[in-house]
Every structure is written in C-alpha cells, then in structure tokens.
C-alpha cells in the first residue's frame, strides 16, 4: 500500500515533516539564494526553479520509507528521505519527489539509485548519485556532478562556468558548456560538446572520450588516458600548440603533420606541431589508447 500525500506551499514552518501524517501539508519559506539539500535513496528527485521564495515538495513515498524530513535551518532547506531500518535495497523504499525551489537556490542533491532531474535553477549545483541518472541544465558559475555508474546528461547555457564531472563507470554527455571543465572517468564514455573552452582537464582510464568545441584565446586542454580512445575536434580556426604522446597507441591527425617514433629502437610515438599562432595549448597522452585530433 503506497502512502500518498501532498505537501502544499502555505505556511511558515521550521519543523520536521512526517510522511505518515497524511493531513499535514508542508511548505517552507526559503531564502531566494539559499541552500537546498536533498537526499533520497530510490525513486526520483525532480527539481525546478520558480520565482517564489518558497520550497515546495510534492510526491509519493513507498512503503519502505519511514518519513520525509523536511525542515529549514536558517538559509538551508533540508529534504531528506529516511528509510525504515528494515528496508533493503530495491525493497519499496522509493520516493518520487517533485520539488520547486527559488530559482537562484544552490542545490546539493545526493541519491543512491534515484534519478536526478534539474531544470530552471540558476544557482550552483552539486549533484551526486550512485547509480541514478543525472539530467541537469546548468546556468550557474559552478557545477559538480559525481556518479558511480549513473549516466549524466548535462546541458549548459553557454555561460562561462567551472564544471567538475566525475564518474566511475557512468557515461556522460555534456553540451553547451563554456569555461573550465574537469571530467574524469574510469570506464565511462564521455561526450563533450563545448562552446568556448578556457581550460579542460580530461582523464579516463579505459573509457573513451570525444570532445568537440571551440577554444578561447590561450586556452589549455590536457587529456590523458591509459587505454581509452580520445578524440578531439576543434572548431576552426585553430590556434594552438599540440603535444601528443602515446606509448603504444595510435595518433591520428587531420591537420597534416604525422606522428613520429620517439626513439629509433623503442616504443612510443609523438606529435608536436603548431597550428596558427599557437596561443592555446593542447596536450594529450595515452598509454595504449588512440588519440585523434581534427578541426571542423
């Protein structure tokens, strides 16, 4: 039997909400630029920004949920799903939450398998899931997304920001992000489509990476992989120094210069060349992965 209840925006309240009080409606006033911390195990977390200074939570809770902890502490609003002690993984502990927050709120969301969806929030985001999928729009100066195996789909607004993306095996698709990006994965695949890049630090152990984007003046791109394939497509005109090195992988370069052996007798290939005035720097290393560089 699924408990279903609705928490409707209305009153000032700073106390904890309990899911089993079906006639208890909750909403909380919130600072327009406050912090909203959301914690859920399974189900969904769907957050959208609005122009009211209120945090509203609606949703449904599975049988395995003990209660929903919903309270504010100063400028922090806390929404936390608490499971019953007896609830095990995949055993009715789902909570589907629809949350509306002041648009400029800073979000801090942690889930296990619950998917995270965020849109129309302009504050900084810190999103973390174990296996849940993360889908977000970023319109802030900074965003951090971490998953173990959950896939990530992140779309920016082309504004300069600092993005930090980490997955263990989850795949990630990033688009319309500008500024600085740090993306790290062990075995996930990363697909990045960037607007104006100032700095990129990209690392994979075995995952593949495909980056497409334009470099700002004096941009710096550092890519490294052990056995994944790295593919870079830079928007023309390209104005960069390239330093590419691999121990046992291949180097494909459509700009012209071919890679050469590092030494007469040993393994390793390298490619150093300048395109245009060379104001930016692109440095890519691999142990055995293939590195491809091209323009469009």
């Amino acid at each position, binding site marked *: 039997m699924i408990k279903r209840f609705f928490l409707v925006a209305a009153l000032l309240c700073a106390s904890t909400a309990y899911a089993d009080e079906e006639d208890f409606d909750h909403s909380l006033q919130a600072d327009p630029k406050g912090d909203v911390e959301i914690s859920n195990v399974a189900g969904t977390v769907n957050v959208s920004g609005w122009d009211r200074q209120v945090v509203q939570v609606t949703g449904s809770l599975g049988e395995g949920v003990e209660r929903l902890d919903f309270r504010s502490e100063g400028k922090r609003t806390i929404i936390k799903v608490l499971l019953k*002690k007896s609830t095990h993984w995949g055993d009715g502990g789902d909570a589907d939450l629809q949350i509306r927050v002041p648009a400029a709120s800073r979000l801090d969301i942690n889930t296990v398998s619950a998917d995270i969806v965020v849109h129309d929030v302009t504050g900084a985001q810190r999103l973390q899931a*174990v*296996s849940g999928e993360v889908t977000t729009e970023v319109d802030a100066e900074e965003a951090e997304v971490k998953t173990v195996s959950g896939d990530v789909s992140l779309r920016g607004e082309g504004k300069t920001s600092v993005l930090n993306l980490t997955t263990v095996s989850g795949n990630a698709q990033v688009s319309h992000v500008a500024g600085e990006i740090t993306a790290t994965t062990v075995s996930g695949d990363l697909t990045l489509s960037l607007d104006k890049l100032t700095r990129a630090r990209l690392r994979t152990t075995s995952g593949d990476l495909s980056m497409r984007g334009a470099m700002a003046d004096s941009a710096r791109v550092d890519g*490294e992989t*052990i*056995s994944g394939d790295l593919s870079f497509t830079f928007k023309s005109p390209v104005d960069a120094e390239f330093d590419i090195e691999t121990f*046992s992988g291949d180097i494909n370069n459509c700009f012209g210069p071919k890679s050469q052996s590092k030494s007469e007798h040993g393994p390793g290939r390298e490619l150093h060349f300048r395109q245009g005035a060379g104001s930016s720097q692109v440095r890519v290393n691999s142990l055995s992965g293939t590195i491809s560089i091209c323009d469009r």
Partner: protein
Amino acid sequence: MKDELHTGDEQDDVLKAVGQLPQSIEPQRDLWPDIASRLDALVPARRRGLQMGWTLALAAGLGCVALGALLAVGVMKGSGSSTTGNLTAQATSPATTALPAQTTAPASGDTAQVRQASLGGYAMLGPEYEQARAQLLIGLAERLDRLPPVERQKVERNLNEIRRALGELNAALQLAPNDTLLRELLLNTYHDELTLLANVNQIADTIPSRSQS
C-alpha cells in the same frame, strides 16, 4: 608446518579430502620482477636519483568530504626505505599483467640506475602516499557495504581496472624504464586510484541513513 594429516583426523573424510589439496599454487605470472623493483625502492635515496615533486596530504580520516580537501600535491620523498614492519599499514602493489621473463642477475653498469625508473609499487611513492592510501582503504570495505551490491561490484571492478592499468604501466616501464611519459602516466594513475577511493568513501558517507526510530 606439517605435511601429514593431523593424527586422529584420518576418519574424517572431509578433512581427508581437504588434506589432499595441493599446498602450492603457482601465481599465474612471475611476481619476482615486481618484488625486485619494490626491493629497489628500499635502496637509499642517493642511489636512486629519481626526483619528483609530489606531496600527498593524509586523507581526512573517515569523514573525508571533497577530494580537493583531501589530497594535496607536494614533494615526494626520495627514499622509500621505510623499515616499518607493520604489515597492516603496508600498501599493496597493483595487480600487474604478465611480464616478460626478467633476469635478476645484475646488469652491466649500475643495477639501481636501470631499475630506478620503474616505480613498481606504492612503496615507491613515499610514506605519505602509503599512509593516505592505507587510511582510505581502512574505511573502504565498510563503505562499500553501504552501497547496493551491484554498485559495490562496479566499484570493485573499476578499482581493478585502475590496478590493471597500473600493471600495464609497470610492465611498460620494464621495457622503457626512462620513459617520462610512462612515469607521468603511472603517477597520475596512482593518483586516480586515490581519487576513486576518496570519492567512493565520500559518496558512501552521504548515502541517506535509515530512521533511528
């Protein structure tokens, strides 16, 4: 050590069957080259000549939060010649792929010079690194337990992925001990392992708790 069955156990068919199992199982590959490399790390710094600038701050205990607060880059101590006998604190060497047969007879010239570039194990990265890693590993098993079983397997699989990469790098360094690219990749991959451990610890720490009521 005794090779015979315990007196009085002959009547126990289970113990009899267990006693017939081979005591010796050869590893799938020769571990001596890696061991020898790590023993080289115990040679005093003045003989090694490998200078790297890398410092690792000790992981902030069980409550490690963000990686940026956890790890810092500094100067790696040149000497790995710690004489600590504390086995529980010992870092483990990475799983490595099969290596070509290696002679252990001293090569012409300075053996230490030839071996120095092969980092060959966590001990080479200095006691601070080992401490940070050991600290993260202490909490790892408990934190992995907090994850759903499927996710725990994925983390372990990816840790093994990194350790396989370390093995490949160490194997490559055997062939090209002075290759700076390999050394850089190796150090970064050791760092990747620490990063993964710290991230897993941090993610597990934030997993929603169960009600106390």
